[in-house]
Structures are given as C-alpha cells and as structure tokens.
C-alpha cells in the first residue's frame, strides 16, 4: 500500500520515520522537563513549549486537526488559565 498513490502531501517513508523518531524523543524529553521543573511560573512556560512539541508530533502523525487544537489549547489556553490561578495564590508560595 505504501506509495501506491502520491499526492503533494505524501512524505517519503524514510524521511517520515526520521522525523517521527526525532519529535517523539523531543516530546519524551519535554514531558520529563515539565515534571521536573518545580518553580510554578517556569513550569507553565515549559508546558507551553511542550504543547508546541506535541503539535509538531501530531503534524507528523498526519493529524492537522488535532495539531490545531493542541496548539490552541495546550500552548495558549492552558498556560493563560494556569498563570491566572498562580497569580491568585502566589504570595503564600514564595
């Protein structure tokens, strides 16, 4: 089935494998970084970067729809809500 139909969006299999493995390693490292960052505000920034990495991963998984929602929710909406909650509870934590 591979390569039966070639469209402008078909990526050569070898290149696609390399891309996916690279981004998967980045995502695993990103998840570790989010968990190991203990300062809250920094953690939110790392989470935002992790959201962008996830979006790139979904793009290589041929899921543009999920890419868009991972970008909007994971990299924009969640950090906004988290930063607001942190600013609300901040003084006692520092």
């Amino acid at each position, binding site marked *: 089935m591979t390569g039966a139909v070639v469209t402008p969006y078909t990526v050569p299999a070898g290149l696609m*494998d390399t891309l996916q493995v690279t981004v998967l390693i980045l*995502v695993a490292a990103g998840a570790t970084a*989010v968990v190991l960052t203990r300062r809250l505000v920094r953690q939110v920034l790392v989470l935002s970067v992790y959201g962008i990495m996830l979006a790139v991963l979904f793009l290589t998984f041929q899921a543009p729809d999920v890419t868009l929602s991972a970008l909007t929710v994971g990299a924009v909406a969640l950090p906004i809500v988290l930063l607001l909650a942190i600013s609300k509870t901040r003084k006692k934590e520092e």
Partner: protein
Amino acid sequence: MQVFPFIVVAWIIGVGLYGIATSRNLIHQIVCLIVVQSSTYVLLLGVGYVTGAVAPYFYDVPVHTPAVDPVVQALALTDVVVEAAVTALLLAIAIQAHKRFGTLDPHELAEFKG
C-alpha cells in the same frame, strides 16, 4: 519503529505519575496531570497512523487516497477539549482550597480534613 511510539507513551505516563506522587503543590500536580493526559493523544494517534497515508482531508487530493484513521483523530480532539475543562475545574477547586486553608501543599491540606 514498530513499537517506539508506544514506549514513549509509557514513558510519558510514568513520568507524569512520578510528578504527581512527589509534588508538594496542588497546581504543580494539576500540570503533571496534564502531562499524563497528553500521553493519551500520542497513544490514540499512534494507533491510527498508517504508513504512507495522508491526512483524512480530501479538499485537493483524490477521494480514495489511502488516509490515516479519522475516528481516533476525532476522539483525540474530544480528549483535548475535555482536558481543558477538567483543568479549569481543578484549578478553581485548588484556588478555593488555598483561599480557605492558606496552603496548596497536599500534606498540610490533609490535616484540615474532618
């Protein structure tokens, strides 16, 4: 390549659980929960991927081009929205806990129980 994405999924879920177990701050725990949930997107999309296929959009490609599975992508989309809703609700509860007890440390919060 056959199993590597699934190993990454297991790694993400393990690292997230480690974060929840060792964290001393409710908001930090909520962020770790986001990480745990993000493993489910990778799992869903990894299961539905088909080598050499295109995304399931036929705006400018022939209709019967081999495409990856649209059903798991729709599920992942739902998953993302539910995650946002759950996070908002958890944060509101964490803020209320902080307001009432003046701390976000789960160990200290446990003492206020009852």
